[in-house]
C-alpha cells in the first residue's frame, strides 16, 4: 500500500487521542470514522483551529473560536458543529493557491462547505479527498495491498504527515527529523566496536605514556633536596645517588618516547580504519539510495560527505580525542602527585584552576563561533570555484570573467575578515593564557618561598611544583581547543549519518518474484505520481504489448521523463501500479528487474576507461566477440577501429575524447550488450546533428528489434518507426494512436507536428506559437 491511498483502519488508528475522543462523542452507534483533517485557518485566513472528520456515513466539521478557546479541541467549546450525511455530498476537491489550500465540499446544488489550511495540512486534506472519492467509487474497496507500511511512530515537524517506523525522512516533504549532533558522535562507537582490542590497547598506552611524562619532575625533588642543596651548604650528601637520579631522568625520557610512539601508532591505526569503514559504508549506502535522493542534493555536498567529513572525523579521533584523554589523565595524575607531596602547596596551586578554566572556555566559545563563520566563508569560496570552473565556457562566452573575479574576490575578502577576527581573539587569548600561567606560577613561588622560609617544604618540592604547574596550564589550553573540535566533528558525524540513516525510498519487496527474463508487456494502471506534494502524473492508463514501440510525445514538463523514471523504478508510484508481464514491478527485486531494461539517455554518461570497458559496463565479463557484435549493431564498430587503439582506446573522463554522436553510439552498444527486453530511449538523438542522428537512427533500428521500446523525442521525425504514439500534456495522456491516425484526428499531436514542419520550413505559424506560449504560461501557474 502506498502513501496517499490509505486503509481506513490504519488512518484512523494513527489519529491523535483527542481527535478520537472528540469524534467519538459525536458519532452515532455503529458509525465508524475513516479519516480526519484539521484545517488551521478560517475563511478570512486567520489562524483558527478546526477539525473535519469523515466517517462511513457523514462528514462532521468542528470549529472553534480562537479568541475564546485558543487551543480548541473540546466538543463543548466548539463554536460550531456542522454535519453532512454522505448522500448529500456529491464531490470533494482541494485547491492550492501559493501555499494556502482550500478543501471544498460540494452537494448536488453546489458548495456545501469549504475550509482553508496552510501547506502543513495539505497531506491530510488530500487524504480526505482520496478517502471520500474511493467511498464514492466503490464503498471503500481499495486496491490490493502489495507492501505493508510500517507503524506510525510520530509526525513530521514540517508538514505534519505521519512518520513511520524506519523513516528517517518525511515521506511527504523529505525533511528529516533532527537529532542532536553530539549524539551522532557517540554513534561512532558502533563503528569502532570492531577495533575494541586495539582501542583498549591504545588507551592503556596513553595512560602509561602520560604517567611516564610525569616522572622527571618527581625525580628532581630528591636530586635537589638530598644532593644539591646539602652539597651547596657544605653538608654531606649521598653523591653516589646522583647517577641513579640522572639515569632515571634519562630512562623516563626514553620510556616516554617509546610509549608515545606506540600510542600514536595504535590510535592512528584505529582511527584510520574507522574512517575508512565509514567511507565504505557511506558510499555503498549512497549507491543503494534511490534516484530521488540524488535529485535533491548537490553533487559537491555528497562528495564532501563521503570524503572530507569522514576525514574530519578521523582527524578528530586520532588527534583531538587522543589529546583530550591525555590531558585529562595528565591533570588527574598531576593533581594526585601534588596533593600527595604537599597538601597546602597543592591547594594554592590548584585554587585558581577553576577560574582559569572558566576563562579559557569562555574565550574558546567565541573562537568556536569565529571558526564556524570562517568555515562558512570558506564553503562559499569553494562553491564559487566548483561552479565557475566547470562552467568556464559560459563565463567566457558572456565575457563575465571580471564579474567572476570580483565575486571570488568578495568571497575571499570575507574569508580574510573572518580569519582576521579569529586571529585577533586568538592572539589575545594566547597572551592571556601566558599571563595567567605566569601569574599562577608567581603565586606558587610566593607561597612556596614563604613555606620554605618556615621550613615547611624543601627547595626540591618547590621546584617540582613549579615544573608541574606549567604543564598544568599548557594542558588546560589544549583541552579547551577540544570544545570547538568536538562541535566540528559532531557536525561532520551528523552529516555522514544523515546519509546512512536514509532508507531507500524504493524498497526491496518482502517476498520477491524473480523476473529472470521478462516478456516485455507493460501495463500502467491508474498511475499517479506526486513529487513533494506537487502532482506530476495524473491517473495514467496504458497497455503496451511485448515488442511494441511507443513514442512519447509532449512538451517538456509534460511528465514524459517522470513516466520513464517510474518504469525504471527509480521512483515508486504514488498510487496505481505498473505491471510488467502482469506482475507489479514492486514485487521484483530492483536489480533483477532493471537488468531487463536498457536505457539510452540524451547525455550518455561514459566512465573513464577504454571503449571496450564502457561497452561491457553492464556485463563486465562479456566476451570480445559480443562486444564487437554490440558495437557493430550500434554502428560504432568502424569509428572505434579508426581510434588510435581500437577498442582499447581510452575515452577520457566522461568520454571527453569522443564526440557527442560517438558517445551516444557507445552507449547504445552498452545497452545492446545486456540484451534488454525493455528499451528506453530518452531523447537519444536530440543532442546531435542530423547526419549523426541518421547514423544513430540506424543503430537504434537494430536495437529496438524484438524489444518493447519506449522512446521520448522532441523531433517527431525520430518516432516514425513507433507503432503507437502517446501524447502527454500536463501529466495526462491526451492522445494515443499511430502517427497517421493522430494526424487525422487533428488534435494536440497534429498541432505539434504542424508546428515542427513549419519550423523546419522556416516559418513560424503564429497560432501554434501563441498556443505554445499560452500553454507554458498555464504551466507556470
Amino acid at each position, binding site marked *: 500500500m502506498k502513501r496517499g491511498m490509505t486503509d481506513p483502519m490504519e488512518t484512523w488508528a494513527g489519529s491523535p487521542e483527542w481527535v478520537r475522543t472528540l469524534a467519538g462523542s459525536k458519532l452515532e452507534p455503529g458509525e465508524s470514522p475513516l479519516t480526519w483533517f484539521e484545517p488551521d485557518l478560517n475563511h478570512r485566513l486567520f489562524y483558527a483551529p478546526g477539525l473535519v472528520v469523515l466517517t462511513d456515513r457523514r462528514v462532521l466539521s468542528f470549529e472553534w473560536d480562537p479568541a475564546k478557546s485558543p487551543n480548541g479541541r473540546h466538543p463543548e467549546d466548539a463554536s460550531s458543529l456542522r454535519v453532512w450525511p454522505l448522500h448529500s455530498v456529491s464531490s470533494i476537491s482541494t485547491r492550492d493557491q501559493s501555499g494556502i489550500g482550500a478543501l471544498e465540499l460540494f452537494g448536488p446544488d453546489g458548495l456545501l462547505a469549504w475550509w482553508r489550511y496552510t501547506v502543513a495540512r495539505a497531506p491530510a486534506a488530500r487524504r480526505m479527498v482520496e478517502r471520500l472519492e474511493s467511498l464514492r467509487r466503490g464503498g471503500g474497496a481499495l486496491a490490493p495491498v502489495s507492501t505493508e507500511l510500517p507503524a506510525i511512530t510520530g509526525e513530521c515537524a514540517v508538514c505534519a504527515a505521519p512518520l513511520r517506523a524506519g523513516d528517517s525522512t518525511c515521506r511527504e516533504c523529505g525533511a528529516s527529523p533532527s537529532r542532536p549532533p553530539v549524539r551522532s558522535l557517540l554513534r561512532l562507537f558502533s563503528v569502532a566496536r570492531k577495533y575494541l582490542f586495539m582501542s583498549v590497547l591504545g588507551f592503556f598506552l596513553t595512560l602509561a605514556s602520560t604517567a611516564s611524562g610525569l616522572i622527571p619532575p618527581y625525580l628532581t625533588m630528591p636530586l635537589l633536596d638530598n644532593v644539591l642543596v646539602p652539597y651547596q651548604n657544605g653538608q654531606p650528601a649521598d653523591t653516589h645517588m646522583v647517577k641513579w637520579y640522572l639515569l632515571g631522568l634519562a630512562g623516563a625520557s626514553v620510556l616516554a618516547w617509546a610509549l608515545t610512539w606506540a600510542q600514536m601508532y595504535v590510535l592512528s591505526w584505529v582511527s584510520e580504519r574507522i574512517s575508512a569503514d565509514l567511507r565504505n559504508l557511506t558510499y555503498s549506502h549512497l549507491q543503494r539510495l534511490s534516484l530521488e535522493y540524488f535529485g535533491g542534493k548537490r553533487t559537491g555536498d555528497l562528495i564532501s560527505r563521503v570524503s572530507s567529513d569522514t576525514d574530519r572525523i578521523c582527524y578528530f579521533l586520532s588527534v583531538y580525542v587522543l589529546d583530550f584523554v591525555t590531558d585529562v589523565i595528565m591533570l588527574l595524575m598531576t593533581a594526585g602527585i601534588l596533593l600527595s607531596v604537599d597538601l597546602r602547596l597543592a591547594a594554592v596551586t590548584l585554587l585558581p584552576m577553576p577560574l582559569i578554566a572558566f576563562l579559557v572556555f569562555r574565550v574558546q566559545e567565541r573562537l568556536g563561533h569565529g571558526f564556524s563563520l570562517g568555515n562558512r566563508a570558506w564553503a562559499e569560496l569553494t562553491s564559487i570555484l566548483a561552479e565557475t570552473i566547470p562552467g568556464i565556457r559560459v563565463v567566457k562566452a558572456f565575457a563575465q570573467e571580471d564579474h567572476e573575479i570580483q565575486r571570488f574576490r568578495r568571497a575571499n575578502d570575507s574569508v580574510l575578515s573572518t580569519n582576521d577576527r579569529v586571529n585577533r581573539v586568538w592572539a589575545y587569548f594566547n597572551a592571556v593564557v601566558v599571563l595567567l600561567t605566569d601569574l599562577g606560577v608567581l603565586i606558587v613561588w610566593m607561597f612556596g618561598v614563604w613555606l620554605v622560609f618556615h621550613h615547611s617544604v624543601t627547595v626540591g618540592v618547590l621546584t617540582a611544583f613549579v615544573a608541574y604547574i606549567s604543564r598544568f596550564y599548557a594542558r588546560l589550553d589544549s583541552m579547551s581547543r577540544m570544545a570547538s573540535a568536538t562541535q566540528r566533528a559532531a557536525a561532520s558525524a551528523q552529516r555522514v549519518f544523515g546519509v546512512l540513516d536514509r532508507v531507500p525510498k524504493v524498497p526491496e519487496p518482502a517476498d520477491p518474484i524473480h523476473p529472470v527474463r521478462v516478456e516485455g508487456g507493460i501495463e500502467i494502471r491508474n498511475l499517479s505520481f506526486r513529487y513533494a506534494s506537487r502532482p506530476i502524473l495524473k491517473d495514467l492508463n496504458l497497455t503496451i504489448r511485448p515488442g511494441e514501440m511507443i513514442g512519447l510525445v509532449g512538451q517538456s514538463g509534460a511528465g514524459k521523463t517522470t513516466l520513464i523514471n517510474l518504469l525504471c523504478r527509480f521512483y515508486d508510484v504514488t498510487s496505481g501500479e505498473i505491471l510488467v508481464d502482469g506482475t507489479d514491478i514492486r514485487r521484483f527485486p530492483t536489480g533483477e528487474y532493471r537488468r531487463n531494461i536498457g536505457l539510452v539517455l540524451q547525455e550518455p554518461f561514459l566512465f573513464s576507461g577504454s571503449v571496450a570497458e564502457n561497452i561491457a559496463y553492464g556485463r563486465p565479463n562479456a566476451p*570480445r566477440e559480443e562486444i*564487437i557484435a554490440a558495437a557493430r549493431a550500434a554502428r560504432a564498430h568502424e569509428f572505434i577501429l579508426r581510434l588510435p587503439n581500437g577498442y*582499447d582506446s581510452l575515452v577520457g573522463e566522461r568520454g571527453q575524447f569522443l564526440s557527442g554522436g560517438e558517445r551516444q553510439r557507445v552507449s547504445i552498444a552498452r545497452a545492446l550488450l545486456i540484451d534488454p527486453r525493455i528499451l528506453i530511449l530518452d531523447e537519444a538523438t536530440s543532442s546531435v546533428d542530423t547526419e549523426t542522428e541518421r547514423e544513430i537512427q540506424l543503430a537504434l533500428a537494430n536495437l529496438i528489434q524484438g524489444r518493447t521500446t519506449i522512446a521520448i523525442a522532441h523531433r517527431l521525425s525520430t518516432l516514425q518507426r513507433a507503432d503507437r504514439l502517446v501524447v502527454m500534456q500536463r501529466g495526462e495522456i491526451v492522445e494515443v494512436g499511430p502517427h497517421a491516425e493522430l494526424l487525422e484526428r487533428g488534435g494536440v499531436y497534429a498541432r505539434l507536428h504542424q508546428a515542427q514542419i513549419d519550423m523546419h520550413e522556416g516559418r513560424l505559424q503564429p497560432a501554434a506559437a501563441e498556443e505554445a506560449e499560452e500553454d507554458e504560461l498555464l504551466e507556470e501557474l
Partner: protein
Amino acid sequence: MISFTLQRDSQRRLVFTAPDGRTHIDVDPVRAFPLSDPRHSISICDSLGREILYIDSLDDLDPATRASLEAELAQREFVPIILRVINTPPKTEPSTWQVETDRGITTFEVDSDDSVYRRPPRRVSIVDSRGIRYEIPDTRNLDHHSRRVLDRFL
C-alpha cells in the same frame, strides 16, 4: 584457413586482394584490441573506414597471409611500454618525462596528472600532450625510482 594478399603498390598504398580476385586499394588493417588482445579481432578497413574483412583470430590465417598482415600491423601500432622513468618529472604542469621504453629512450610532455591513468589492477596508461599513449602493464616491474615518480601522479 583464410588467405588473401596484402601488397604495397607503386605509390606505397596497401592493396588487399581477396581470394576471388577482388581488390581494394589503400586498405587499413586494424586490431580491435591492440593492447588487451592483439591476436584476435582484426579488421581490414577500406580507405573510407568501412570494414571489408573481419578476422577473428590470427591463427585462422594461412602462414604467409599472417606474416604479411602482422608485418603491416606492426607498422601502424605505436604504444611504447615504459620500462623505467629516468628523470624526476616536476609536479608543475606540463611536466616533461624522460623514460626508457621498449622502443628506446624518449622524452614527452604530460599536460596534467589527469593524463596519467591508473587502471586496475596494476596497469598504468599515460597519454602525452600529443596524444601518444604509453603503457606500464604492471607497476611492480618498475624500479624504485619510477614507482615513486608514478605515485606522485596517481
